[in-house]
């Protein structure tokens, strides 16, 4: 069967019930979708299938013949980062980075779908994507920034509005 992966036509040989995640990682050597749980529970394997976010671990590859699959590699490159990727860097939305591949894909789908910068709406939309490092605060800020269309400098990072600094002697530092 055929898949169009990141705009490249690929022929797939894996047995039909093989998950898209396994096909991408093990047959096509596209390693950005992560096998965080292989049960649909964590969101680290999310890719776009015909533009919609999909858990690749839950999707039998045989159901996708001819489909258009985009992984995070297909959203932008280090030289040409997408707006969401820039926002993730500028807002420090990736720490260990293991959830980031699926998170960036899902955030891209949210922004492309006309999602707003409303924190509750973002939280609902990405609720199935777990991150154990960030506490989500900066992910929410990154997605909101991307939804607004903010220009995000990838050479620096932003302070969250929720953080203030003082010195032991008192006063703002």
């Amino acid at each position, binding site marked *: 069967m055929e898949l169009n992966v990141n705009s490249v036509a690929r022929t797939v040989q894996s047995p039909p019930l093989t998950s898209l995640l396994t096909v991408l990682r093990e047959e096509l050597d596209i390693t950005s979708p992560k*096998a965080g749980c292989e049960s649909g529970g964590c969101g680290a394997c999310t890719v776009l299938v015909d533009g919609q976010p999909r858990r690749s671990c839950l999707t039998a590859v045989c159901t996708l013949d001819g489909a258009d699959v985009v992984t995070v590699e297909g959203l932008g490159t280090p030289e040409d980062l997408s707006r969401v990727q820039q926002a993730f860097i500028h807002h420090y939305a990736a720490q*260990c980075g293991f959830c980031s591949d699926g998170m960036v894909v899902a955030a891209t789908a949210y922004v492309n779908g006309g999602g707003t910068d409303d924190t509750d709406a973002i939280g609902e939309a990405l609720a199935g994507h777990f991150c154990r490092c960030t506490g989500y605060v900066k992910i929410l800020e990154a997605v909101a920034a991307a939804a607004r269309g903010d220009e995000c400098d990838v050479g620096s990072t932003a302070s969250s509005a929720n953080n203030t600094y003082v010195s032991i002697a008192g006063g703002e530092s």
Partner: protein
Amino acid sequence: MKVVGARLPRYDGVGHVTGRTTYVDDVRLPGMLHAAALRSPHHNARITHVDTGAAEAMAGVHAVLTHADVPLLVHGHLSGAGIPGDEPLLAKDYVRYRGQPIALVAADTVDIARAACAAIEVDYEELPALFDVRLAFDDDAPVVNDTFGNWYNKYEGDLDVRQIRKGDTEAAFDAADLIVSGVYRTQSQEQVPLETQVCVAVPEPDGRLTIHTCTQAMYFSLGVVCSHLQMPMSEVKMVGGTVGGGFGGKVDTASDPLTALAALKSGRPVKWRWTREEEMLASGNRGPWHMEIIDAVSSDGWILGRKMLTVHDAGAYGRFSVYGLTKHSFHHTGAYSIPNLHFDGYVVFTNRIPTTAMRGYGITGLATAIEVHAERVARELGMDPYEFRLKNANRVNDTSPNRIAYEDPSTVEVLQSLASATGSELSDELRAMSRDERSGDMLPDHLVAQIGSGGH
């Protein structure tokens, strides 16, 4: 300063958001095999018979490891600190927790490896299991740990308790206006790194081993691997440093030594990636703590003394639990200066997964206990929670339970800042407090003797 203190982006941030960062599971090599483990279905059992013949005969199986394949079966992770080892890399005569690995299979595919594990015959004689740490001291309690019995007994040589004795606790309790006791039980928590335990081990043509590791501590893990394999450090190259979350759970070196042995036995690169279910049910997690605190308090809100009993549920083997308990004992007054202390702590073994490090190791549960207890005492006294805490908060040159003078404590300032941030009104007297060395009203007689000679 320009670079330190600057809001620079992550060194590896671009790789993280573009799918380019390489984690261990992303390593792939020609001819790489995949491993799966046979794990104990029982909480406590004697292994009476193991037959790996059928598994070894399966097509696509390249190595089956049991305890007999491990050059040094028991390595003490803290042997450098004088704490003996107790945990076999693969179970030999007994399994002491459900999920304990008994064998590892390396095969062409993970499906074959799993099928081969299922084909290994193991006979067990089930034994009664112990789960409640409070019952570990009973004469008829099932025995959990073959090296130590039911609680660790080698502190500083041969003590079976980690203890702190400071000041005159009996006198403090005699003098108390109020004695408040509470029992606090905090739970086991899984680290839940998004990346499960994973290793790729590669036998190199020159006889060395390359180990792609998810460890939080490459040199520590190098030592663990070389000890189990009885190889010099020069023979093993750990490759790692990029970890998909750890939170303490990847100090255990859970997958490296066995994957390395499988690579050596098969002569092929081997990957062993744990499933999420294995991560949840068989990887080391934060241990439960049972803590009993009794405080002697004066009616004007001073904590005069504390008696504390801690029983740490370590699970079946010691790992880092003794370290965790010692750290716990050193901090059992929290952010307060309590001059008279009587602390007894035990590391108790139960037939559950061996517990290990997790963020805040030894102290997360302790801080929880101390602070709920502090709130209870304040409420019993009818005292404002901020006032009670600010009064007893450690000051410069107060001493810790183990007699180290606090150099730069900021509890007072941190609490004042919190009150301000949350709009909680503090009295002028509380606002005027500082961390400065105790004097005047802040230096009542009972705190004089504990003042240190350090400070600044």
